[in-house]
């Protein structure tokens, strides 16, 4: 933890990549949309920020930020760690890699008390469904027929997403872009976005500002003053019309919609070093096939790369 200008997020040639890769600052030529999603979410974390992150895609983005553009961001995880610098993929919320370089090892009550007090800057969550105001569902898919008690699909549940979206400074939602997920009507509201828009959050007494961005494998959305989602950028090769087709409502599109910046070779190399067994990135079936011995050797070898940095 350095005391040097922690608010300055590194960009371009200033980023020091902890991996051995040629021309790390140049644009990557072979990245997947999942990798682009992870990198784009990592760019939402500024250096020095306290970033409250859940397991899976959001944590790999946090770990990438910590090892690249935002070395002085502090990762916060709900099971009790603050300040971790995990040398590899975080498989679960009490993964012991979160113990590496942690500043704090405490309990869940304390972490969420600090969150409700407004001490954390940015939270990243996932969800199964989202509506135009950024309210999310990660509890049940019922459609018109099924019920909460006997749903069509039982999803994992809130986890920390409700608490983060209620009280964290701002929130980022990471999702797969699917028409059935970007819905006009949630089957169940797990976490509050901008509610019905306007001043609703303020009237509800929420301390956090709610969702500020939604990042998918097709696009990045921001929110306007009404609290409604606006298409801000599309990923390379994705047209605005493609995104409209993957949203159920009449999507607002920014006047100056841009193309999402492509990742650098260094960022992709770091991502693949964090996740050598494709546990999160899923470019292959490797994680479903690798034998125990090979898995353990590979994980330890990759940990070493990021621990030695």
């Amino acid at each position, binding site marked *: 933890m350095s005391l040097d200008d922690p608010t300055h997020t590194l960009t371009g040639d200033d980023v020091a990549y902890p991996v051995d890769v040629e021309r790390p600052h140049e644009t990557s030529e072979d990245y997947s949309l999942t990798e682009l999603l992870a990198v784009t979410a990592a760019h939402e974390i500024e250096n020095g920020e306290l970033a409250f992150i859940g*397991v*899976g895609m959001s944590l790999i983005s946090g770990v990438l930020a910590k090892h690249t553009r935002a070395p002085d961001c502090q990762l916060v995880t*709900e*099971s*009790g*760690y603050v300040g971790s610098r995990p*040398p590899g*993929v975080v*498989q*679960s*919320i*009490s*993964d*012991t890699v979160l*113990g*590496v370089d942690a500043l704090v*090892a*405490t*309990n*869940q*009550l304390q972490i*969420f*008390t600090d*969150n*409700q007090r407004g001490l954390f800057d940015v939270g990243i969550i996932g969800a199964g469904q989202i509506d135009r105001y950024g309210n999310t569902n990660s*509890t049940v898919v019922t459609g018109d027929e099924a019920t*909460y*008690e*006997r749903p069509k*699909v*039982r999803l*994992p*549940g*809130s*986890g*920390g997403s*409700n*608490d983060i979206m*209620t009280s964290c400074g701002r929130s980022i939602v990471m999702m797969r872009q699917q028409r059935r997920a970007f819905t006009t009507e949630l089957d*169940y*509201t*797990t976490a*509050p976005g901008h*509610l019905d828009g306007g001043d*609703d959050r303020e009237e*509800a*007494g*929420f*301390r956090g500002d709610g969702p500020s961005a939604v990042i998918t494998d097709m696009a990045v959305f921001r929110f306007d003053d009404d609290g409604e989602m606006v298409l801000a950028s599309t990923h390379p090769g994705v047209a605005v019309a493609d995104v409209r087709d993957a949203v159920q409502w009449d999507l607002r599109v920014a006047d100056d919609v841009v193309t999402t910046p492509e990742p650098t070779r260094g960022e992709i190399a770091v991502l693949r070093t964090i996740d050598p067994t494709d*546990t*999160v990135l899923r470019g292959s079936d490797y*994680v479903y096939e690798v*034998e*125990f011995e090979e*898995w*353990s050797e590979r994980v*330890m070898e990759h*940990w*070493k790369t990021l*621990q030695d940095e």
Partner: protein
Amino acid sequence: MSRTDGDGRAHGGERALESLSSRAPSGTPTGARSRRDKTTDLETAIDEYVPDGASVAFGGMGGRDPEAAAREIVRQGKSGLTVLDDARTTLFDVMVGAGCVDQYTGSWVGTSLISQGFNVRRAVEESIPHHLEMRDVSNFGSSLMFLAGAMDVPFVPTRSMVETDIPAHNPDLEVVADPLGSGDDLALVPAAQPDVAIIHVQRADALGNAQIWGNVVNDHLKARAAEHVVVTCEEVVPTETIQRHPEVTRIPFYAVDAVVEVPFGSHPWHCYGYYYADLPFYREYGLQSKEREGFLEWADEWVLPHDEYLEKIGADRLATLEEMESKINEVPGVRGDDATAPEGSR
């Protein structure tokens, strides 16, 4: 516990040791009653403290989970359990698939990044093997229900969960306007006081002073909220070892009923400072449990007395998991902080 025996504590000395109940009506001294050797074996502890129909909370959270204790619950064929908890992974999915659980109150269910909680899904969606009733709370809600239970007050308020469907579908939660007049709505989270909390830790002494290295999740609260507490641990250590690092005694002896030494008691998950998670093992669980038939075969193969389970995993594999963890975290030696001191009973 030689140093603290007869040290003039408020309730020391006079009272005879009473039976296994750790919780008596408020105002009843627990100090003397709780100063006894609580070590037992896993089969006895589960048999004694987890009757059919009990409400149970488990420690850890995708790390330091009491997996061996949950397999023992399945092995003993317990039924009608209510699980009052936070986020639950494989141990919950196994118990649900085996038909042990009727109801769950908590914040998240699944298994890991690379598989879903297929048994939980089958139970909730299709009532296989029977219906599982779900009562959702948020993660903060789960902490607060144990805080309220530990404080022995009916509820604790929070800003979380208001303006969402969580209180609408969980009849235990109530949203009220602040009675003190701030104008804010608050969700009241009712106290959870499970019949038993089962918590796996790195080290405990025979009296039940339980030390947790690394993160604590909600375990300090669950232990105090529950009527009874079973601590399973990697190592039972002398009280002198506990006294060397009292700051990590997250669960005190006076909250504990039983202490069981269960090495690798969290496998296939992690135990901070002891071993890393066995991802290929729970990957196989995820793949097999995708279909009901596959799960039943898995349970036949792996729901075993713990020593047989470890033998089946294999000493080499367990040693590799220990080696992995040693690359990232360490805890002080059992016999002192001197790096050259020999490790404990393992």
